[in-house]
């Protein structure tokens, strides 16, 4: 983590309600993911399941700075972003359950949440694949003078893909309004950054495209929010893309199938102990007198209950009807063969 931990809440001109909202969103994500893990263990969820636990402050901080007209595109570790955006978590959980009420009708699964009505264009499962897509959405915004910024999240690992390079270059050449947010959690799946990236600091990669870049502490939602605000201003003013590298850490395995042979329990514990974004933020809030522990506990309990209902909703929903299987392969009718 490169920035000092000392960012105080009072330095920011935020209302208490807003601050508690950030807190609540982080807790919602955490509990959502814990519930998902549990349901996966019960066999209610299949396939891949990538949890965002430990990285909540990045999504929550950044997305809190976005305006409704802005757009969101993410990789496959994509449960946190829609929750941060305020999307109802029930269809998200239902999606994991493969239910008709899922946000993608049960067709997408964990890696493919989306809600275009909220300008959330989805999670994508091919590493690097969504970066050119985000670039294109940004082009449509520029082309149609929408004054909207596309915020695109991706991991350190994806910066080694050719798609990353091509997308960065295109976004810079055409000065597209896109904010690149790289979540550097030190690993791509089980491979540590230093073994696969020529540079350890992802911001350095932005230099190859003259894209202004900043590296920040991704465990502090306020620092993330502030950096995002400035970056969005830059993008919105027509100066082209901006690049944020948020240093963070994944507390759980890459996916539920990951035995975590590539890192020690101690390493994970050290990070958990000192860098849990929820623990850090609650300390900040109580020490600054913004909220009492009791207030936070009430939020925690509230979210706990909410998530019970979320799981129940998913559980009680019907599976997609078999008669829908062949719908939406094409947007326009295709003659049957």
């Amino acid at each position, binding site marked *: 983590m490169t920035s000092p931990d000392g960012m105080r809440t009072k330095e920011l001109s935020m209302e208490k309600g807003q601050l508690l909202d950030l807190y609540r969103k982080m807790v919602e994500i955490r509990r959502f993911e814990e519930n998902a893990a549990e349901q996966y263990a019960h066999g209610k969820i299949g396939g891949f399941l990538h949890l965002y636990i430990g990285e909540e402050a990045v999504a929550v901080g950044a997305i809190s700075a976005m305006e409704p007209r802005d757009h969101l595109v993410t990789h496959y570790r994509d449960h946190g972003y829609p929750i941060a955006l305020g999307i109802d978590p029930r269809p998200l959980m239902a999606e994991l359950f493969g239910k008709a009420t899922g946000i993608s009708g049960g067709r997408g699964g964990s890696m493919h949440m989306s809600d275009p009505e909220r300008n959330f264009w989805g999670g994508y499962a091919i590493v690097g694949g969504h970066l050119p*897509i985000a*670039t294109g959405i940004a082009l449509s915004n520029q*082309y149609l003078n929408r004054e909207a910024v596309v915020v695109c999240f991706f991991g350190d690992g994806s910066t080694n893909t050719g798609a990353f390079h091509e997308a960065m*270059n295109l976004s810079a050449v*055409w000065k597209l309004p896109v904010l690149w947010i790289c979540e550097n959690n030190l690993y791509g799946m089980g491979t540590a950054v230093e073994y696969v990236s020529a540079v350890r600091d992802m911001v350095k990669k932005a230099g190859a495209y003259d894209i202004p870049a900043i590296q920040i502490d991704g465990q502090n939602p306020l620092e993330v929010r502030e950096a995002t605000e400035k970056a969005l201003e830059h993008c919105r003013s027509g100066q082209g893309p901006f690049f944020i590298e948020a240093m963070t850490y994944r507390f759980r395995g890459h996916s539920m199938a990951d035995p975590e042979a590539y890192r020690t329990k101690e390493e994970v514990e050290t990070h958990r102990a000192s860098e849990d974004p929820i623990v850090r933020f609650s300390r900040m809030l109580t020490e600054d007198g913004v909220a009492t522990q009791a207030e936070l506990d009430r939020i925690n309990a509230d979210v706990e209950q909410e998530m019970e209902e979320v799981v129940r909703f998913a559980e009680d929903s019907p599976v997609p009807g078999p008669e829908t299987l062949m719908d939406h392969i094409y947007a326009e009718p*295709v003659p049957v063969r």
Partner: protein
Amino acid sequence: MAREITYRDALREALHEEMDRDERVFLLGEDIGAYQGSYVVTRGFLEEYGRKRVRDTPISELGIVGLANGAAMGGLHPVVELMTINFSLLAIDQIVNHAAKLHYMFNGKFTVPVVIRTASGWGQLGATHSQTFEGWYAHVPGLRVVMPATPRDAKGFLKSAIRGQDPVIFIEHSLIYRNRGEVPEGEYTLPLEGAEVRREGKDVTLVSWSRGYYLALGAAEDLAKQGIEAEVIDMRVLRPLDIDTVVQSVQKTNRLVIVEESWRTLGMGAEIAAAVQEHAFDYLDAPIARVGSLEVPMPYAKNLERLVIPGKDEVLTAVQGVLARELVTVH
């Protein structure tokens, strides 16, 4: 009233008309602007429409198709030019894992109306620049694949592709850009479906598409002089594939020869043969014959290249083969 124009001009008219009709239609691709297009299809477009709508791109096939996917999701109607179909391999992840999937995977919540124009072809261009992969794209649900042979289809298909809501792989051919043919006066579009019987005959059915169609037609004319009446079908659209038209023809002729420029193994012809034997089994008097390229990376030397790409002689030989065949039943 019809006019006769070239295949290239048909494409140019389609692009012009659609760009004039709808501000959201724009072009992007390598060297389509200042260079005027590697097959000169977009000549003058940069000067006419400006840099916003005619975008010279970096050499980033994957990136520009991905960008076009995103732009399409965002409400534009991008027409990407991939210089040749050989380079589309670099973009195939964005075509197959993205364009073809997103509408379904996200439950129909948005569309990806992207048109990818690219060119098949050969002519001493060597192993990496002489391939054709229409069969690969035709394998993929979620894509529409067209490979027009005539100026009329080229124009009508391209306009429909641009107006449509689905991703379309639009495959041209470098060796037919100068072919001339009739197109209707005034506006028209053509639905992206259906094969067409372009020459009627009763003795044998020849099926092809794109440049292969002309090869088949040439062979049919030769055969006519020998008193053999070949029915010639231009497939036009490769996904969805109109097998019915072929089956109906085979029900009449009882014999089928498929002509294509790709390698025979797993070329489009494989699917057509497999489907026709399924649907017209009782009508076939001879095995379906497939004429395709020899299975070799394309050599540069002209004398070798000529051996690889099928010519009229190979088609005639195949026709003789299916005609000579006696129907026997062995048990």
